[in-house]
């Protein structure tokens, strides 16, 4: 998952080939080990001291305005924070766990050949307007996702996987032949080929039931601002760019949820202000997906009143500099290695006040295939002299000029300026181009920048999620922003993903990673650590490994 402080995982996935998804299930079922342990010992240590009280209203901040509220469109951390509250899915994750469980589905059945999924739906689940959710509500959403005018980034997850999806998308059919509703509470989905991860796909917010009549009555664009779902929180009001108020859905089908009555979310793009509001006790928490300003973090960490309220989460993620392998002079491996050696990663970690650990490889530490002791020949240690020498050997003793695309967050800007200074030392002049949102990912996909500062967040703990998505030649330019295309690597990647799980497969991934590292298509920079800060009177907050902040689960204690 691509995520940047202010930005989008966005449209990326539209283009993720389905073979990757096949491995989601396998990966995710083991997910508990990687992500949960990462959530740190401090998780929940300080909160929930008192008895929970019923109801109540809290305030929280949101850094950027919501890009989308239509579940078919939303695909960034910010939007998911609320979209997951407005809408339910067939399946979801258990609290504070990456294990799947049923939500709107009462039960489900997968045919022996893995081609037919039958979901029995819960009865009596109602939309906010009182209408009942039925199997057709899902089919309607599938159809929206496959409607070109809607422009959903989720199409790649079901087209061409679901029978008849392509015909529907191209307008050759007015129904998706692979979707059936034999009765109101049964949904049958037929696939063209087995796909182990399909249940995980059905757990994504894209595939939420919607009330088609409502959507049609206000139109798709309006629906993006006026949600109507089955979820625990209703949108009471939304003042674009300023404030959103969530009200408890009294008729929510899950007993006892949500626990609070009201949540007021302010769009507070000023990080300092956000921290101040928290310190004054105005807001209940600052979620891990919001950035805490460096100066504030340092102060919070050394403040005895607040340091115990911090919660730590090591993300299975790698921040890296993608070197465009197809443009001169980055097409020369020596130049790429020189850049690898020129960057002081310790300093980058320091600039983040230690909220990261240095990365020397593609896979993050929790990922199978990660090597504690990387072979010396692919472990590029910080050495500016050697970098200069390599650059001279490559025919650029005086360096060159290059443009670097980056995101625009405060920390990001510090980091890219540090990289800029490091590269300047070996003669490379970097011009920084900070962008955000879709203009950033579009820029990266245009492959016109020599360097792209970016990051990848795991969708599931399997090396395919990094190596295949980010470095397979077939992923240029969708996700492979380094434009790295090595036929031997491609072949091995394709072979590995069809292999049975086990050591042999992991060994192959180790081999692949080292082969890639030898060509230095990236500079792996660091693996991030994120902090949330939570008031002691808030009960039930956890940093979920897959989902966003658990707004439906939190409650207040007597203060």
């Amino acid at each position, binding site marked *: 998952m691509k995520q940047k402080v202010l930005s989008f995982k966005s449209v990326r996935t539209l283009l993720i080939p389905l073979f990757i998804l096949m491995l989601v299930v396998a990966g995710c079922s083991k997910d508990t080990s990687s992500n949960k342990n990462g959530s740190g010992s401090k998780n929940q240590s300080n909160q929930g001291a008192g008895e929970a009280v019923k109801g109540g209203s809290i305030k929280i901040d949101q850094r950027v305005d919501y890009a989308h509220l239509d579940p078919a469109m939303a695909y960034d951390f910010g939007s998911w924070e609320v979209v997951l509250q407005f809408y339910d899915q067939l399946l979801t994750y258990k609290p504070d766990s990456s294990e799947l469980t049923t939500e709107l589905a009462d039960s489900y059945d997968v045919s022996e050949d893995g081609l037919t999924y039958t979901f029995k739906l819960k009865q009596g689940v109602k939309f906010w307007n009182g209408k009942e959710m039925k199997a057709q509500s899902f089919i309607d959403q599938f159809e929206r996702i496959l409607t070109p005018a809607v422009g959903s980034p989720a199409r790649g997850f079901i087209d061409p996987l679901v029978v008849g999806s392509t015909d529907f998308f191209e307008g050759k059919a007015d129904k998706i032949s692979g979707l059936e509703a034999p009765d109101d509470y049964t949904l049958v989905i037929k696939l063209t080929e087995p796909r182990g991860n399909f249940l995980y796909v059905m757990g994504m917010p894209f595939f939420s039931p919607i009330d088609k009549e409502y959507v049609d009555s206000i139109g798709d664009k309006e629906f993006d601002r006026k949600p109507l779902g089955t979820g625990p929180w209703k949108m009471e009001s939304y003042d674009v760019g300023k404030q959103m108020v969530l009200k408890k859905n009294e008729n929510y089908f899950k007993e006892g949820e949500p626990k609070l009555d009201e949540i007021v979310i302010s769009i507070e793009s000023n990080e*300092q202000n956000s921290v101040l509001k928290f310190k004054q006790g105005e807001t209940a928490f600052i979620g891990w997906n919001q950035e805490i300003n*460096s*100066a504030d973090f340092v102060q919070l960490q050394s403040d005895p009143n607040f340091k115990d309220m911090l919660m730590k989460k090591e993300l299975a993620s790698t921040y890296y500099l993608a070197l465009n392998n197809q443009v001169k002079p980055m097409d020369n491996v020596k130049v790429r290695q020189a850049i690898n050696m020129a960057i002081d990663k310790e*300093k980058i970690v320091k*600039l983040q*006040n230690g909220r990261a650990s240095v990365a020397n490889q593609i896979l993050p530490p929790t990922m199978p295939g990660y090597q504690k002791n990387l072979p010396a020949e692919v472990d590029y240690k910080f050495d500016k002299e050697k970098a200069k020498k390599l650059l001279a050997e490559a025919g650029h003793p005086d360096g060159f000029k290059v443009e670097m695309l980056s995101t625009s967050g405060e920390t990001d800007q*510090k980091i890219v300026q540090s990289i800029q200074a490091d590269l300047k030392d070996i003669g490379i002049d970097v011009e*920084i*181009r900070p962008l955000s949102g879709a203009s950033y990912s579009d820029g990266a996909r245009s492959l016109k920048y020599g360097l792209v500062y970016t990051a990848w967040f795991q969708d599931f703990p399997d090396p395919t999620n990094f190596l295949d998505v980010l470095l397979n030649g077939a992923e240029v330019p969708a996700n492979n922003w380094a434009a790295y295309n090595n036929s031997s690597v491609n072949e091995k990647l394709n072979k590995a993903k069809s292999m049975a799980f086990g050591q042999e497969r992991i060994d192959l991934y180790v081999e692949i990673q080292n082969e890639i590292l030898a060509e230095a298509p990236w500079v792996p920079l660091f693996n991030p650590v994120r902090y949330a800060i939570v008031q002691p009177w808030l009960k039930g907050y956890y940093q979920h490994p897959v989902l966003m902040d658990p707004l439906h689960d939190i409650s207040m204690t007597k203060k």
Partner: protein
Amino acid sequence: MTNPNVSTVKASAVSIQQQVKKRNKFSRFARSYPLIIIGGIMVFTLAIMAVFAPVIANHNPITQYPEGLSDIGTPIEPNDNFILGTDSLGRDALSRVVHGSIVSLEVGIFASLISLIIGVFMGIVSGYFGSWIDMIIMRITDTMLAFPFLLFVIALVAVLKPSITNVYIAIGILGWATMARVVRAEVLKVKQLEYVQAAKALGSSSFPILFIEVLPNIMGPVIVMGTLAIGQNIMLEAALSFLGIGVQPPTASWGNMLQEGMRIYQIAPWMIYGPGIALIWATLGFNLLGDGLRDWLDPKTGR
């Protein structure tokens, strides 16, 4: 051997007398126009700072010093080595402030020249020829003056890349309008002067009259406006860099230093004061000088 001595003594006596005379004249001038002197000194120090920046600054303004960051990656407060402290990347704030004067003066002076040249030309043409030419030019200036400057630059940046060039382009497009208006008004006055009328009557063609007779007569207000414009443009450059759409990193500019200071003032308040005071010094200097020059060269239009 005596002669030369005598002559030197004489010569120095004369020069002392001249100096005294000059000093009297100067002190009288200084007393009548104190703003010119104060503003002039401020601008002069700024120019010295810019010209001798590499000598004055004791560090490289773009080097990120390892000792410029604390163990937890925060800026270092002012000390013997880093006199104004460091910024959040470990760069020396003093050196950046000193080097920032280069960008400020550059943009201030050249941008003002652009608007001055276009503005004076349009103003003279408009005022001198009158009728439909005047009408067209004045409607154009109305149009330009309707755009809030910063928003206009933002629009330019949206389609071009953020860089200091946009400042020049925007000032080239918008900045001349006020200038043209003032010049036009002056030209209308000068036009009525006898010798201009005479030159016209004698059949001189328009362009010589414009530039030989009219231009020198409006130099006073033009110089005043130009001086004030430098101050304004320095402020604009700083504002744009502050917003991140002017001078790009790592080049030091007071605006982008303040932008950074804005994010770390809780732990590094010195980042607000160094560049801030430099910026106020510069704008105040040019404003004082401009006001003073107005009192001197153009007393009627003054306060």
